[in-house]
């Protein structure tokens, strides 16, 4: 029953399992228990899911109160679809390690890019 037909309300999503994407890139999965007009959320039995490549790891977080401004999107998890993902779940230590390695390679690639740009700039100024 929609209290205001046509409006994007989160009321029907209460007590369902949701995936919340935050602005800082984090993914939280939990049962939506409470909402308000700012899209502030209360999530129950929350798990922070970290994805690296085809693997993922879940860190249990308990109850989360999320300030609405940090929410990018809220997706209802289809429990049937959840059981047939091609992704592989690994332990927390393993996924944190994979994440650290990924950040490392990204940092190094970034460094190389900055260096290449600097070199190009030096070349350009050398001719002026």
């Amino acid at each position, binding site marked *: 029953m929609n209290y205001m037909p046509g409006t*994007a309300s989160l009321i029907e999503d209460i007590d369902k399992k949701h*995936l919340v994407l935050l602005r800082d*890139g984090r993914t939280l999965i939990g049962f939506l228990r409470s909402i308000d007009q700012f*899209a502030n959320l209360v999530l129950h039995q929350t798990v922070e899911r970290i994805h690296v490549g085809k693997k993922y790891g879940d860190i249990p977080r308990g109850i989360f109160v999320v300030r609405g401004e940090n929410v990018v*999107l*809220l997706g209802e*998890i*289809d429990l049937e679809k959840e059981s047939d993902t*091609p992704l592989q779940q690994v332990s927390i230590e393993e996924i944190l390690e994979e994440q650290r390695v990924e950040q490392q390679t990204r940092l190094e690639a*970034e460094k190389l890019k900055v260096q290449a740009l600097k070199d190009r700039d030096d070349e350009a100024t050398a001719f002026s």
Partner: protein
Amino acid sequence: MLFYSFFKSLVGKDVVVELKNDLSCHTGKRRVDMDSCCRIAICGTLHSVDQYLNIKLTDISVTDPEKYPHMLSVKNCFIRGSVVRYVQLPADEVDTQLLQDAARKEALQQKQ
């Protein structure tokens, strides 16, 4: 209120919502890396919209980059209005004349 009414007239149509380039992606002193930023475009059917232009889509699919494996088990989603950059609409669904007239009327009303 104009665009709220405009979107209400598009409920049931297929749209693509492109989200903003995340301002605080991977927080820290690290510069934002464009390739890995949380920039997503989501295709789906417009289910509902509200006064904040929050959007609810059904039957979603993430258009490229499919670097978002999290969304595999999600069929419906709620997108906060503040993170939307673009909403791509099918051209034949939009009556631009009507929209222009409505915008003019709204502008006149606002002046008074």
